Structures are given as structure tokens and as C-alpha cells.
């Protein structure tokens, strides 16, 4: 979590190899992303902030495209696509081109594309922005079920409720620096707060008040 411009997306971009860190090393699954990017890319999947899908491909074709990037066998790919489409109610619209989808549907497709390869580590950059409350709840349930499969999820969010519902550990960054890290309960205890929102405001609001 972090205010706008804190560096959440930049952090994800560094972790998945899209930008080079100016300092330090990124290790994913024991692999150095700069020295062995191909090995890292087999382990991860990224759901970017914007709905990064091919507008002229159908929903189903978009998911299949990224499944093929991970060399999934055809039968397994078909089965996985079917299951994913049913999970978030995109099945009916799966034969329509992505450019005909509403904003919320594109966001759902964006998420499904990231899940096709059953990644060990999943990066979700504000995955529920632009979704209506009903779909957002359903997506949270879905992300919770992925978490239950013992996959690592690194999720950035502006929704305190989302972090409380989904995250085992919360990191708060501000001005590109990690300013808090720990399980939500521990953070609340440390900052004598009743909820994560208070923690967030105490940490990031102080800087605003101090005019930093």
C-alpha cells in the first residue's frame, strides 16, 4: 500500500524485470532477474494496472494467447480457460472481442490472463480498480482462493478493505521507501490503531502534515 506516486507500480516493474533497479538485486525463486530473466518469467505472472489485452482478440483468445506463451499443452489450456472464464462470469462474453467489453469486464479479463499459467508468484497491480462493488467482492473471493492454493501473491491496492481481507503481510511504502511491513494485526498494535486505515494515515499522513 502507499499513496499515489509512492512507488508501488515501480516496485512491481522491478520485480518482474520491466525496469532495472538503480541499486540492489531482485531474486525471484532464487533466480536473479537480471542474470536469469527467462527462468524468472517461467515462475511469475503479472496483472498490470491497465487492462493490457489485445482489443481485436476475443476474451477466450486473449487468455489462450498468454497460455501459449507459457507452452501449456492444448488440452490443459482449454480446460483451464473454461474454468477461468466460469469463475468470474466471463463465459458468456468469451467469444466477443475484448474491445467490446465494458471497463469492468476488461479488468476481469486482465486478471484471468494473469492466471492462465498457474504462476508460483503472482503480481497484481491494483487488480480491482474500476470494478463495481459486486464484481470486486467476487474478485476478492477469487484472489482468496488462489491464496489458498499456496501461491505467493504480491498485490498493490488503494483499498484498505482489500488489504485487510486478503493480505497476510502488509507493506506500506511512501516516497519510494518501505516505511512499514508486517501482518495487519501487528501493524495495528505497533501503531496503536484500530484498523489498517488508521495505520496508513498515521504513517503516510504524518509526512503530509510535516510538509515533507
Amino acid at each position, binding site marked *: 500500500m502507499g499513496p499515489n506516486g509512492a512507488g508501488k507500480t515501480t516496485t512491481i516493474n522491478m520485480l*518482474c*524485470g*520491466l525496469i532495472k533497479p538503480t541499486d540492489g538485486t531482485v531474486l525471484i525463486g532464487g533466480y536473479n532477474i537480471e542474470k536469469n530473466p*527467462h527462468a524468472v*518469467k*517461467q515462475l*511469475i*505472472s*503479472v496483472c*498490470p494496472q*491497465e*487492462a*493490457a*489485452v*489485445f*482489443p*481485436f*482478440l476475443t476474451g477466450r*483468445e486473449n487468455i489462450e*494467447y*498468454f497460455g*501459449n*506463451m*507459457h*507452452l501449456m499443452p492444448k488440452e490443459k489450456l482449454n480446460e483451464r480457460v473454461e474454468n477461468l472464464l466460469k469463475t468470474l462470469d466471463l463465459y458468456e462474453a468469451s467469444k466477443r*472481442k475484448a474491445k467490446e467489453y465494458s471497463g469492468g469486464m476488461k479488468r476481469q479479463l486482465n486478471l484471468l*490472463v494473469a492466471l492462465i499459467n498457474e504462476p508460483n508468484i503472482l503480481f497484481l497491480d491494483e487488480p480491482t480498480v474500476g470494478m463495481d462493488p459486486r464484481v470486486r467482492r467476487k474478485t476478492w473471493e477469487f484472489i482468496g482462493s488462489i491464496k489458498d492454493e499456496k501461491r505467493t501473491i504480491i498485490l498493490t491496492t488503494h483499498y484498505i478493505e482489500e488489504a485487510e481481507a486478503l493480505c497476510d503481510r502488509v507493506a506500506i511504502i511512501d516516497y519510494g521507501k518501505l516505511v512499514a511491513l508486517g501482518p495487519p494485526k501487528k501493524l495495528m498494535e505497533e501503531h496503536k490503531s484500530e484498523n489498517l486505515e488508521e495505520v496508513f494515515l498515521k504513517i503516510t499522513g504524518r509526512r503530509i502534515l510535516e510538509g515533507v
Partner: protein
Amino acid sequence: MKRQRILTVFRMEMKKLIRTPLYLFFSLFFVALLVVILGFALGNVYGWGPDAYGTPRSIFEHMVPGLFAYSGIMIIFTFASAVTGDRDTGVQRRMKTTPLTSGEVIVGQMLSYTIIPILQTAIILITALIMGFNPIITVEGVIMVFVFMIFMSFCSVGLGLITGTIAKDARAAGSLAFIFIVPQQLFGSFIYMGEATKVIGYAMPSYYVSEGIYRIFYGGTLTDIFLWVDLLVIAIITLIIYIIGVKLYDR
């Protein structure tokens, strides 16, 4: 390199072409439409004299070899728009987080840009024949025309990559593409600008394609050494442009 990924890129490129009316029109039908218009307007006008081999030709017939090259030039526009389109939607960045390699993208695209010039050539040739184009047609000659057009296509993909990488968005790419399109159109395709400007044509990739196709259709023989020189020059230009384009795209 994995076949599954290459074929996926190839299929996606073909779907992009077929399902995007703007790309489809500019890639396959724009020049065919031009052939029809010029055929009607200049099919019976003989102001440019006989061809280089002494056969009387209408202005339209003089133009047809250059029109083949022109259709290849238009790929710059469609490809540059497609590259910036993928960048604007964020798909390009997303692809970079998958195991897809630059080599697989390039081979997949090259496959699709082998099919497109074959379709272009077939459509233009049939349209031109209907409109009164009367070349010397041999099987090996037509195959050679396809070879020239495939090189023209690869060259334009390279120029499209350069344009798409430099341009900030799809709209800018559309405008910027004309920096590469217009000079080739004027000095290396179907427009005759007079002998004085011919030297400028030597710097245009499309000039060698127009010249080569002219020799094939009107000379009718593949033993012409200048035909092979034209092919060699376009191959070298294509290689250089493609390497620059890929380097820029990777960055």
C-alpha cells in the same frame, strides 16, 4: 525458440490484420483500388513511350510494377500503428513479462509478413490483369515477384518498427510513417518524376523492387544480371533496416 509461441504470434498477427478494417484496407485493398482507378484513367494513354525492351506500353502499364512496390510501402503505416497500439494498450509490456523471446516475436511476425505480400501481390496482379496490364508471365517470373515483395515487406516492417518505436502514440506513428512512405512513393514506386530525380530513387528500397518487377514482367527472363543486383541491394537494405528496427524495439 519454441514453435508453439512462434505460431501463436503468427496467428495473432493475422487476426490483427483481418479484424482491423484499417489495416486490412491499407494492407490488401488500398493499392488494388488505386490500380482500378489508374487502369480506367491511364489504361489507354501512351505518353511515356515503349518499355525498356521496346514494347509499346500505356502509362498505366508503366506504373503497375511500381504499384506492387507501393503496396509493400504501405506496410510501414500499418505496422507502425500496430506497434504503438500494442504499446498504448500495455500489451507490449505485458508480453515482456512472459517467457516469449524477441527472436520468437520476430520469426512469428516475419511469417505473417511473408503471407501478407503474397496476398497483396496476388490481389494486385489479378486486378491489374483485369484492368489491361499485359506482362510476360512465366511461373519462375511470378515466383520472383513474390520474392521481391517479401523482401519489400520485411523492409517495411523494419521501417515500421523504427517508426513505431520513435512515435509516442498510434496517431503520431501514423503521421511519422509518411516520412518513410512519401519519398519512396515519389522516387521509388509508380510515379515518374523524370530522369533528373532518378538518382534520389537509388536511396529508396522500393526503387529496387519496382525496377526488379519491371524487369521480370517486361524483360521476361531471369538471366538479367541487373535483376539479381536489384534483389541483392534490397536484401542488404532490408537486413540493415531490420536490425536497426529490432534493436530499437528491444530497447
